[in-house]
């Protein structure tokens, strides 16, 4: 092991394993996770060449090979628990998307939740056995987040008892669904249902798109890959165009809404259930934000301990770059953020499981709130993690730009979640809508509960700047609970400002939508402030659940850093609202720097606690043993450009012209 890293680990003040257990949710779970990872890591079938050196087609092929194997092995080992499947898959695919994601994650579950028993009999077992491979085709070229705008049509023909599917315009071509381009032979297609001359809105249909056996597209179906992307090389995101393509009536998913043979439409009972799926996916994205940022921090912090540069003191050897304050200032707040987001992800997941327990007993009352609030958290965490990963890459200087660092790959894999599953700004506005609704409720004298209960304090509109200005002494910058209060005040203020500005726009007799649009910058700001408060609160709450004193001390510092760094980046909000004074702001800046120095000795142990295996990290700079330079050289030698000593471009283009120029 590299000497620098050994010294860092020896000098840590706490046992990182204990922290790993907290992150995993218990020592037994850590152990089980490691057992599952070992199944993959020790399996020669899952070994392969470094993906950085493969073309997109090769990466796709490799992913398909591994996915198919994975399905076989999961069944062989009898792994069925969702978390365990997740661990296994993450280890196989290094956290990347793969061509069967939509089949396993959307097609099969949708069959289970939205298909009738008869439909499940027809489709589920073949799909389970991968004879049917399905994608989930919702997004169109011209429409994403705004579902009502989707243009694909499914027109019922009672004469033949068939639906006729059409992509009437270029913009209506299904575009982006994963696994659709090359892998799938079926798709669940969302289309506007027309029957008896009326549009009944979006419904889901099972559409065969390729011939079983030959895998050729069926007549009337145009299907293919949408081409290269920023990342997602393994995934065949696809397009699908349908021209008068007929499917039997029985292929509409009819557990809820139905079409009778004569074309009569039967309305669904409840559509709130779809909220559940969305909340679940968002909890995964928040977890992904935490995990991706944790990976990036692991790489950047280990590298910063091994890399030496310049001099702090004339004559001394070059210091580790992690000893520079500016480097600590880049990385430690991100480290704290990674932990914070981890706890947020765990919280949403837990709440989801609690509430879905209620769903089965018929109580959906909490679901709309959770749905509204997780929208903002999805956006908040993914935006920050997205920027944070890039910050980590740049903190590694030039070497971060090489794919051997693993950072470009983490970034391009992560960044689309700012736009998929609901574009982030739209998500923020959804949360804002809930906040405004809650605020209005409070104003009309009703109390609200849950994460927005702080709005109750606003009753009677008594929160005036002057009045808040009386509070500054109340904030103790070394007390996490007091900082939660400060964030709460900031959120209240922004919600109130947005609500009042919205009202002012409405008073100018603007349409609801127009007024909303003209207030949307304020509204997004209110949502962000709210989410920031929730994150600080959840991190603080987590502290009380840590029993080990040494771990608690370290986490307390991280929590303080998270809260104070956030204030230092938004001092204007706290100053303008009179939550903090100039003097306190100066103290906050100072305290942030002290915390950087306090965290410094534990930085490597804190990333070790994330417990990423080298294989999963896939980074030369982030290797556990820190032997970076030798391995960069070994890695580079395998580069495709080095396959021959003299590149053919020399003989083809350069040599013949050289003399003539």
């Amino acid at each position, binding site marked *: 092991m590299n000497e620098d890293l050994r010294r860092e680990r020896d000098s840590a003040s706490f046992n990182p394993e204990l922290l790993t257990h907290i992150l995993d949710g218990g020592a037994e779970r850590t152990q089980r996770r490691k057992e599952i990872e070992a199944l993959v890591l020790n399996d020669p079938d899952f070994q392969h060449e470094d993906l950085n050196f493969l073309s997109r087609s090769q990466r796709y092929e490799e992913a398909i090979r591994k996915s198919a194997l994975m399905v076989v092995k999961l069944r062989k080992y009898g792994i069925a628990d969702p978390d365990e499947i997740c661990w296994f898959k993450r280890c196989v695919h290094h956290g990347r998307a793969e061509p069967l994601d939509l089949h396993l994650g959307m097609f099969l579950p949708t069959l289970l939740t939205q298909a009738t028993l008869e439909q499940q009999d027809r489709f589920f077992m073949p799909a389970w056995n991968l004879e049917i491979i399905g994608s989930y085709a919702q997004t169109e070229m011209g429409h994403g987040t705004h579902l009502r705008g989707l243009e694909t049509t499914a027109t019922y023909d009672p004469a033949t008892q068939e639906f006729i599917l059409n992509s009437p315009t270029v913009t209506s071509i299904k575009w982006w669904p994963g696994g659709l381009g090359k892998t799938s032979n079926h798709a669940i297609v969302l289309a506007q249902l027309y029957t008896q001359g009326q549009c009944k809105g979006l419904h889901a249909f099972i559409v065969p798109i390729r011939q079983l056996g030959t895998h050729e597209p069926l007549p009337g179906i145009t299907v293919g890959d949408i081409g290269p992307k920023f990342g997602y090389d393994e995934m065949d995101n696809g397009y699908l165009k349908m021209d008068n393509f007929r499917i039997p009536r029985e292929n509409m998913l009819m557990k809820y809404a139905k079409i009778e043979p004569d074309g009569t439409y039967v309305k669904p009972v409840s559509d709130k259930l779809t909220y559940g799926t969305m909340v679940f996916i968002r909890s995964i994205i928040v977890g992904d934000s935490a995990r991706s940022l944790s990976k990036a921090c692991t790489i950047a912090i280990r590298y910063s301990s091994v890399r030496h*540069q310049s001099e702090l003191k004339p004559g001394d050897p070059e210091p580790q770059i992690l000893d520079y304050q500016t480097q600590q200032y880049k990385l430690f707040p991100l480290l704290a953020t990674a932990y914070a987001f981890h706890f947020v992800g765990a919280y949403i997941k837990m709440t989801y499981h609690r509430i879905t327990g209620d769903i089965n007993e018929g109580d959906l009352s909490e679901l709309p709130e959770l749905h509204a609030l997780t929208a903002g958290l999805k956006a908040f965490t993914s935006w920050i993690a997205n920027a944070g990963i890039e910050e980590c890459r740049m903190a590694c200087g030039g070497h971060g730009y090489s794919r051997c660092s693993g950072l470009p790959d983490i970034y391009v894999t992560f960044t689309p979640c700012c736009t998929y599953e609901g574009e982030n700004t739209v998500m923020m506005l959804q949360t804002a809508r809930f906040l405004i609704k809650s605020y209005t409720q409070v104003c009309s004298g009703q109390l609200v509960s849950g994460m927005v209960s702080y709005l109750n304090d606003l009753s009677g509109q008594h929160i005036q700047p002057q009045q808040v200005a009386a509070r500054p002494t109340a904030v103790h910058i070394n007390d996490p609970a007091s900082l939660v209060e400060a964030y709460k005040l900031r959120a209240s203020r922004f919600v109130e400002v947005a609500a009042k500005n919205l009202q002012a726009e409405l008073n100018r007799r603007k349409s609801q939508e127009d007024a909303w649009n003209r207030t949307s910058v304020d509204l997004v700001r209110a949502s962000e402030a709210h989410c920031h408060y929730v994150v600080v609160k959840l991190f603080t709450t987590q502290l009380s659940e840590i029993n080990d004193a040494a771990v608690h001390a370290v986490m307390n510092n991280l929590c303080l850093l998270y809260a104070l760094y956030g204030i230092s980046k938004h001092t204007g909000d706290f100053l303008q609202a009179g939550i903090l004074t100039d003097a306190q702001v100066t103290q906050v800046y100072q305290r942030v720097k002290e915390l950087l120095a306090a965290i410094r000795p534990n930085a490597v142990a804190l990333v070790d606690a994330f417990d990423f295996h080298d294989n999963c990290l896939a980074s030369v700079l982030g290797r556990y043993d820190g032997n970076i330079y030798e391995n960069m050289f070994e890695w580079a030698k395998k*580069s495709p450009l080095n396959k021959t000593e003299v590149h053919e471009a020399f003989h083809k283009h350069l040599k013949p012209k050289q003399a003539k120029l």
Partner: protein
Amino acid sequence: MAQWNRSGYFRSSGSRDVNPDLETERQTASFSVERLTAILDGGADNTRTRRAVEAVIHSEPGFSRENQYFQSQNERYEAAVRRSVYLKEKMHQMGWTEDGPEIKYCYRALGGDLAFNVHRVFKNSILALGTDEQIAKWIPLADKYHIIGTYAQTELGHGTFLRGLETTAIFDISTQEFTLNTPKISAMKWWPGDLGRSATHAVVFAQLYIKGKCYGLHAFILQIRSLRDHSPAPGVIVGDIGPKMNFEHIDNGYLMLQNINIPRENMLSRFSQVLPDGTYVKRGSDKINYLTMIMTRVHILWTEVIPTLLKACTIATRYSVVRRQSKLNPGDPEAKILDYQTQQQKLLPLLATAYAFHFMNAYVNEFYNKGYTEIRQENFDSLPELHALTAGIKAIITEYCTAGAEVCLRACGGHGYSALSGLPFLYTKLAASCTYEGENTVLFLQTARFLVKCLAAVHSGQPIPPSATYLSSVDSGKCQARTSADFLKPDIYAEAYRHRATRSVKSTTKLQGLVQSGAEQHEAWNQCTVQLVQAAKAHCHYIVVKNFIDTVEKLRNEAEIQKIVKHLCDLFALHGIFSNTGDFLYAGYISGDQIDMVTASYLDLLAVIRNDAVPLVDAFDFTDESLNSALGSYDGHVYQRLYEWAQKSPTNKQVRTVGYCHGMWRVRALHTHFLLFTMTFSHPGDQKIY
């Protein structure tokens, strides 16, 4: 893109079958786009020359970059070599010279997708550091491409900190040779462009040793590959450093030297020389070395960095008036996404930033040319300022441009993530700029060091360099604005930025405090670096705002254009205040009520500039070929282009990818198919060109 033109969808800016949503945006422009383009180009003559060059380049299928996003690292490298060789021929044929005005337009038209870019740095370093004899020997060979050069400075273990470089050059009096060595793995040269596969020669930086004594870094010319068969010279281990986030067309390389002997004459000796008896002679000042570095920094800003942000803005803005989503008013058709305030807030401040940075061009060049003339006359007085200014400006511009391109990418939703949007390519290109040619944090600290010295000069009554004189002026204490409209007065916001910069720089006096209280200088410095970086940023931000204001004033004879550029200037300044309210609220310079006025003015400006957004990006006048984007083309036929282009993807060349056998899952090998199509597909123009 010649093939595309035939399909009817894909036309260059010249033809006019335009998406009506874009057409209406252009009809309501408040100013003449053509006139603004001429101003941006520095005169209508330049615009004419540029367009003439672009016409030549784009009429040649050999220069097409249509397939770029489908290509592997190997293919992109090969294409760049082919294109570069072809460009040299073309330039020769057209009578364009290496130092003529056309070359930068060629570069622009081709999006910089060329090989041998470091060859120029190789030549420049010989011209700057070489003696007249050395110049006479090497430059003609390089000009004719008989040799291809690279510039090997950065090592695996050392980048920005040059003194830490570990490559050695030991002089042997008996043989009159230098022996170059890579003593350990971290000393391997790593990253130089053109080194991996192309270069035959390198200017190598190494620590010079004579009779056991180290004389510091010097530059040596070294042959690394055979001129006959291009194989590596004996003792040279050289190769490509592997795939990167972008720049796949460039063969960034590694170089390991094992006892390579070169003659005494191969040390570049304009400023220092080793005599045959081993005597080390230093001549004049080698401060001019800095000038090469400064020149490179200035150069990349105008060739690589700023135009890339301009392109990203063009793509995102045009797409945002073609893309429709949700409804703003019931009964209306779905709204253009640029009509959403949140989308305006993402894109329009960036558009203002693009203009702000473009206008910095003239400012920095003037500064640079003045300094260059003086330094050529051995007057180094302005060097510290020139160095500090270009360091900070490079850092702030690359930082903002990189972040800005990423915002553009995400502002295009899912389609921004497609390589065919062009945005991932532009972003990843910019992403390198924050660390190359000086890591940004290090550069900000260099600017800060200069500012701290200026502040000390203020206190001791010594003269202060022009860019920092504001540090000595009297501070007004409070912002004088009374209404939102007051914040549209340049005096008001310039003063606010000046105040912020002064306060930030002055707050670093804590540094002195720490030192006086007994902390060692270096430790005190490190303790204050976060603050010092902030001070440098505030300083640079002020300079950019100030220059924007000056630029607006100079447009007084162009009423319409001055009006819209003034709006952009206001937006740039107010967005900066809106995004950093704490800096202005601190110590009560701006009150809470005034911040609300800033916010109101800022939001109003978004709505105003919205109406000219498309004409403002049109004025950048990028050809479709140089944008190379399905979302950003002039005609706005976004969806058709995306659909047709995607179908050309290699992944669509084989219909079947997976096969089934008795219900068992099997994967079909793809290699044969893949190889077959790359042979027929990747270089459609080859036959014709050669």
